[in-house]
Each structure stands twice: as structure tokens, then as C-alpha cells.
């Protein structure tokens, strides 16, 4: 019999369509929840916006390891793990929104690389070991590489602001043209978009470019090799791969297989499906492409207890290497002077309800949910202000946006409890820092000019900024009565609205720093 030259899709790819539909549904659900992570005016969002992160076994496991507590919801993540133990990496193949995006981008690439099999797939397991070991010793870095955390962060900081900017620019241009019918139509569409898709304000983030380049780079890897990230880098994929080793859902190949290699070309996991002996079960994404496309219908997925495929051999040296790296990383990150009392970065104002800094960093997975939901846009990702291990964790930059006094959204969306969910009464008592006046720049102090903006906007029931009426002389010798502002250190909560609204632009005449923050024992000014 001649080697068959079948067209690749000779039978109806029903499974593929079902899978694509499932992927689309989960991706849309994910994006809808992302868009819903925004205030509509009430203090509750009304949607379970952190459900994907809750279902992430890697984030859940590393948080449990780093905090040694079980106080976050873990049932969903456990469910995903159990599903993986039974069915294999269905999460990767059917659910993961980043995986779906990779699928979409990789469709731009004609054919899969079918060069000789590389050992690169081991990287992700070594990365996983590194993350698990370091988190077991209190260094939580998993969120940096976790696919869901990475996706939310990238959408928040780069993709969504970019789309918003582009969209608004287009509609603004048409608006400025002011053509009779055209502008009316475009304004109608713009209104519709504002109600549904666009965010209320244009988001501005300090690290859009860096995070955006990383994200687009990761997507672009699909052009080198389809689902490069999933095959070689994803630590969540590695964790699920380990769990799928003994999955009950198994792939069997009948005797009619003639080794034509069609399946190998369509395998997104690089699981070597054409090799009966060396099939890498942990790499299988259960996409069932091989079943769909086998010209001889030789592939079948079914339940059996019989383990199949090759054992995962990471290599003893490699495993020891990543364990050591995970161990060494812990003290290496912790010797930063930022961890020394009194040397903390003064501008590192954490969101209200944040745990004490050490505990905070054990939990924060840098997913960017708090940054996304922050109603004033004041929460920004750090670069090095919180140390390298704190990269992309939230910091309030009052000049960009203050902390709204009666808003508690950031604590509501935090998936790991790094920011506690506060009741409104509790929020009113939580201090995130203290504002202080720069007399050299303040108009009534330095320039004999009236101004009370900081006092006007101060939100505490009894204002933390009080005014002292003083008589001063201006240059011409005219005496005038001015009201000079003072901060009441007992009352100031550090929300930073005074800094945000101070008319002395550039370097405001009143600035908030983290001193006095409730969460810290050391970063205090007043005698208790």
C-alpha cells in the first residue's frame, strides 16, 4: 500500500469545533469579567471577577506554601487539579484564556515546526520547581510567570489602555470634523462603546511599554513555534502536566497507524503523538486534534487505568539545580535595604487594607486586579520601589490618582488577601500614609497667595487639614489675612487627594508618603 497522501482534514473536525467553541466561551467569559472589573458607581462590582485566579492551582498552591495558611478559597483550584488528574491538561487545551490567545496567534503561522524534538519542554518543569521551592521559603514569584496573572496584568497595564487610547483618538477626530451625519453616527457608536466596552477614564500606567512588550513578545513566540509559551515556559502547564501523568483519560493508538506523522503536525503541545513509545503524556493538551485528523482513524481517547507514554525524565542534575536556585533566590531578594525598618521607600503607599509588607509580598501575585479596579487610576505597578520580588505590585501614586475615601474595591478583587477586604467603617480608620506640607511651595506659606484646596478636598469627617488665619505682608508691604493649612497627624489617612488636587503642579506643595501607615509597626511617626 502506498503511503497515503491524504488531505489533512478529510473527516469532519467535530471535536475541534467543540473545543474551539469551549475555548471561545471561556475567553469571552474571562474578557467580560475583566471588563467588569470596573466601578459603575456602587461600592460593589456584582460579578465574581477573580474566579479565574481562584481556580488557578499554581497561584493557590504557592500562596499556601508561602503563607502556610489555608485562608483563601481553594476549592475551585482543587477542582481543576482533580479534573486534571482524571482528564489530563484539559485546562490548557480547553479553558486557559492565554492558551486560546496563543492558539489564535499561532494560526498566523502556516505549519508547525517539525524539526527534531527539543528538550526545551523541560524548562517549564524546572521553572515550576524553582517557584515552588522559593515560595515554600516565603518568596512568592509565581504570579510573574503564571499565565492568568500574566494575562490580567498585561491586559490591564498595556492592551486595554492601548485600545482605549486608539479608539478614543478615532472618535475624537471624527468629533472634531463635525460632519453632519457622519459625526452623529460616530458619536452614537462612541456612546454605545462607552457604556459597554471602554473604561470610564483613559488609564495611564507607568509600565505600559515594558509589560506590553513582554506580552506581545510572548505572543510573538507563537510565530517561532506554535504555543511556544505553553510548551516550554508555562509553570501552570508544568504543574498540570505533572498531575496529568496518571490521568484516567488516555490516548490509545490502534494497529492501523502507519506512522504518517499527520498528528505530530497538528499537536499544539509537542507531545510527540506519532511516537507510540515516546508519547509525552504530560505535554498532551487533550485538544484531540490527533483523534480528529488521523487519516486512518487510529487514534482514540478513552478511560483506562493503564498508564501510557514515556515517563517524564527531568534529569537529576537539573532538578537539583532548580531547587538550589529556588533556595538561593530567597535570601538574595531579602537582603534588599528596603526590608530594613526606616529604609522603606517613602513613596511606597500600599492600597488600603494591605497586609504588613512582608506578609503582603508573600501573597501579592502581581495580577493587577487592584490596579485595574482602582477608581481614580492612582494604583500603579511598581518597578523597583518594592524590591525586585515586588515588581508590578500596587503602589498608590497620588499625583496620578488619589485613594477614594469611601471606596473599598481593591480589597474586594484581590484574589490572595494581600489586600484585605475592608468594611466601610474599617476603611475610614485605615491609614495608608500621611500628608505633609512643603512650606517652600505652598501658596499661602511661601507666596502670600490664598489657597485652601487641600483643606477643601480633605475627606475625613473632621478635616485632617486645618487652616490657621495669619496676617502676612506681601512685597508691596500690604498686610493681608491668609489661611495657612496644617496637617493633623492624628486624623490624616494618607489618601493623597490633597496632593492630587494641589494646584502647585509638578511637585505639589503637599505630598503623601507611607509614614504612619496602619499596617506597619515600624513606619510610624507619632507616639502611640
Amino acid at each position, binding site marked *: 500500500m502506498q503511503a497515503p497522501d491524504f488531505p489533512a482534514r478529510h473527516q469532519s473536525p467535530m471535536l475541534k469545533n467543540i473545543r474551539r467553541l469551549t475555548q471561545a466561551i471561556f475567553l469571552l467569559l474571562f474578557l467580560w469579567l475583566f471588563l467588569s472589573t470596573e*466601578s*459603575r*458607581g*456602587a*461600592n460593589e462590582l456584582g460579578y465574581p471577577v477573580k474566579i479565574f485566579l481562584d481556580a488557578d492551582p499554581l497561584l493557590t498552591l504557592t500562596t499556601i506554601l508561602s503563607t502556610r495558611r489555608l485562608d483563601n478559597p481553594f476549592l475551585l483550584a482543587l477542582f481543576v487539579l482533580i479534573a486534571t488528574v482524571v482528564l489530563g491538561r484539559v485546562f490548557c487545551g480547553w479553558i486557559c484564556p492565554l492558551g486560546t490567545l496563543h492558539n489564535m496567534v499561532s494560526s498566523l503561522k502556516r505549519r508547525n515546526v517539525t524539526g527534531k524534538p527539543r528538550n526545551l519542554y523541560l524548562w517549564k518543569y524546572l521553572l515550576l520547581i524553582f517557584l515552588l521551592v522559593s515560595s515554600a521559603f516565603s518568596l512568592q514569584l509565581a504570579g510573574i510567570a503564571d499565565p492568568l496573572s500574566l494575562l490580567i496584568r498585561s491586559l490591564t497595564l498595556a492592551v486595554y489602555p492601548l485600545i482605549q487610547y486608539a479608539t478614543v483618538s478615532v472618535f*475624537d477626530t471624527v*468629533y472634531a470634523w463635525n460632519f453632519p451625519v457622519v459625526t452623529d453616527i460616530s458619536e452614537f457608536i462612541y456612546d454605545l462603546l462607552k457604556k459597554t466596552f471602554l473604561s*470610564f477614564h483613559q488609564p495611564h500606567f507607568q509600565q505600559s511599554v515594558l509589560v506590553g512588550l513582554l506580552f506581545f513578545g510572548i505572543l510573538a513566540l507563537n510565530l517561532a513555534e506554535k504555543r511556544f509559551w505553553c510548551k516550554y515556559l508555562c509553570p501552570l502547564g508544568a504543574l498540570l502536566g505533572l498531575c496529568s501523568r496518571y490521568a484516567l483519560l488516555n490516548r490509545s493508538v490502534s494497529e492501523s497507524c502507519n506512522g504518517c506523522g499527520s498528528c505530530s503536525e497538528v499537536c499544539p503541545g509537542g507531545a510527540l503523538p506519532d511516537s507510540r513509545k515516546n508519547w509525552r503524556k504530560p505535554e498532551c493538551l487533550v485538544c484531540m486534534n490527533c483523534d480528529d485528523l488521523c487519516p486512518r482513524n487510529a487514534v482514540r481517547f478513552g478511560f483506562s487505568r493503564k498508564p501510557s507514554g514515556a515517563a517524564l525524565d527531568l534529569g537529576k542534575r537539573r532538578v537539583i539545580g532548580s531547587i538550589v536556585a529556588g533556595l538561593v533566590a530567597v535570601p538574595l531578594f531579602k537582603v534588599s535595604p528596603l526590608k530594613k525598618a526606616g529604609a522603606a521607600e517613602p513613596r511606597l503607599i500600599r492600597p488600603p487594607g494591605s497586609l504588613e509588607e512582608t506578609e503582603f509580598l508573600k501573597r501579592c501575585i502581581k495580577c493587577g486586579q487592584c490596579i485595574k479596579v482602582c*477608581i*481614580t487610576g492612582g494604583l500603579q505597578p511598581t518597578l523597583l520601589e518594592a524590591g525586585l520580588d515586588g515588581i508590578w505590585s500596587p503602589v498608590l501614586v497620588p499625583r496620578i490618582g488619589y485613594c*477614594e*475615601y*469611601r*471606596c473599598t474595591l481593591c480589597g474586594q478583587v484581590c484574589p490572595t488577601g494581600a489586600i484585605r477586604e475592608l468594611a466601610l467603617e474599617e476603611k475610614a480608620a485605615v491609614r495608608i500614609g500621611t500628608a505633609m506640607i512643603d512650606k517652600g511651595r505652598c*501658596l499661602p506659606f511661601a507666596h502670600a*497667595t*490664598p*489657597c*485652601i*484646596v487641600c*483643606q*477643601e*478636598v*480633605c*475627606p*475625613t*469627617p*473632621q*478635616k485632617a487639614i486645618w*487652616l490657621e488665619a495669619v496676617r502676612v505682608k506681601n512685597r508691596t508691604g500690604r498686610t493681608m489675612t491668609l*489661611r495657612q493649612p496644617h496637617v493633623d497627624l492624628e486624623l490624616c489617612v494618607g489618601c493623597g487627594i490633597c496632593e492630587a*488636587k*494641589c*494646584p502647585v*503642579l509638578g511637585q505639589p506643595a503637599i505630598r503623601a508618603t507611607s509614614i504612619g501607615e496602619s499596617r506597619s509597626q515600624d513606619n510610624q511617626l507619632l507616639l502611640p
Partner: protein
Amino acid sequence: MNRRDFLKSALITGAALGLPAGMDPLLTVLKAAERPDLAVVRGTPPAAITRAAIDSLGGMKRFVSRGDVVVVKPNIGWDRTPEYAANTNPEVVGAVVRLCFEAGAKQVKVFDRPVNDPRRTYRQSGIAAAASALGASVLFTDSRKFKDMRINGSSLKSWPLYTEVFEADKVINIPIAKTHGTSKLTLGMKNWMGVMGGWRGRIHQRIDESLVDLATFIKPTLTILDAVRILTDNGPQGGNLADVRRLNMVIAGTDAVAVDAFGATLFGMKPAELGFVRIGHQRRLGSMDLAGMNIRRITL
């Protein structure tokens, strides 16, 4: 009824009795003369006293014509619920919206440029719900619609202001009475800060002159001061219920200075103690001479 009112109504009655039927227009003029400069109504509920105040000024039909686009400008500046008296009472706003539609308005627009986040202030103030339930277009301000305007005042030469205010047929100002750090009180004239774009905080450097400049440039058809609850300390934002006093009162008038002058008295102040009222009076934008005014006081 004081002596002045009595004489006036006696005159009108007398005239009406003595005049032949063809002299009706004269009667109308005289009736207009009888209209008070200010209406001050006390009682509950807020919607009823608002209606009574406008009725005693001659009814909303006097101010709003059929087919008008009306801008109603409450204070929606702060993320506070109504009981804190930081924003205009939603029932007062609702009543005004209803009266505008009853008078035949085609569209009623309600907006403010708040200090706190607009989504929260519109909602927490209760104003968005109250006004849109009655058919008003409750809109967030659109940054593209602030245009530089030649104000040519003594303090403000030009400033970006919200164009919809100037495109409307009629403009109704509904401030709330509160204390404030530089202007001492924030009443009607200061409420126009809510249509300023840009870094409006700078206005406090010459607050009184600037407020009069603004109020001269934006002449509302009607000013309705909400004193259902007033904020007596820690204004303009408040947050402490102990600072709130319940007066159950609404003051309405066409003279913005007179309304603010009366507002001063609610806080035990003389009108002239407020710089912007004094300057408004001097510049003849309006009058702060409450004693010389016809003030109709009604208690429901």
C-alpha cells in the same frame, strides 16, 4: 402678610375692580409687580416645598417655555449620601426636573463636574437615580465639551467652560448651602465651579472676584438654593452628621446675589460678610439688600 404686601394686593384688587375688561394687560403687569423677589418655603417633603417656592415666583411656566432645552445644575461634587448634605438634595432636583417637563421642556439635562469620582458621586448623591427616573438626561461631563470662553471679568479673563450650559435655552442652578474654607460659604454662585474645566483649584487665589465673574458670565434663569439640610462645618464635603442641620427649606429667586445673600442668613451671617455677595452687589449683578426686597415666606 406684611404691610407692603397688603398695600400691593389692595392696589391690585382695587385696580381690578375699577378697570374695564379691556385693560387686562395692565392687570398682568401689576400682578407681575406683585411677584416676590425671593420665595422662602419651609416644610416637608422637599419636593413639595420646591414646587411651592417656584409657584410663588409665578410658576415654572414663567421660566421655561414649551420645547426648551433646560440645563439643571445641582451640586454633585462629593461621594456622599444625601444625609451628609454635601450634594444637592435629590428630591429637590427631582422636583425641578418634573416642573421643567410640566412646563413643556423638550429635554432636561442634569450634570456636574464633581471633585470625587463622577461615577460614585452621581450614584451616592441619589441625584442620577432621582433625575433620570423623571426623564432627565443625566450625563457625565465630556472633556471635549469644555471650551475656552472669553469671560472678560475682573479676575477671570478666559477659562474653559462647559458648552452645554451655553447651548441650552434655559439654565437653572440648584446649589446646596454649605460652609467652605475660602469663600466661607458655598451657595449659588460658587456652584458654577462645577462647569469649569482645567485646573479650577487655582480659582481660590482670588475666589470672590472670580465667582462674581463666573456668575456674571453664566446668568441662570433661576436659582434654587437647597437648604433642606445645610452643612455647618467641615464643608464643602462634610462627612460628620453632627455638622448637618435640617432646615427643611428651599429658597428660590431670579437674582443670584439675592439668593446667596439670603443663604448667608441661614448660617447667622450678614450678606456683606461674604465677599462674593458684596462684590456682586457692588457690580450690580444683583442685590444683597434683603430688607428692601419682597420676600415671600411660606410654611407648608
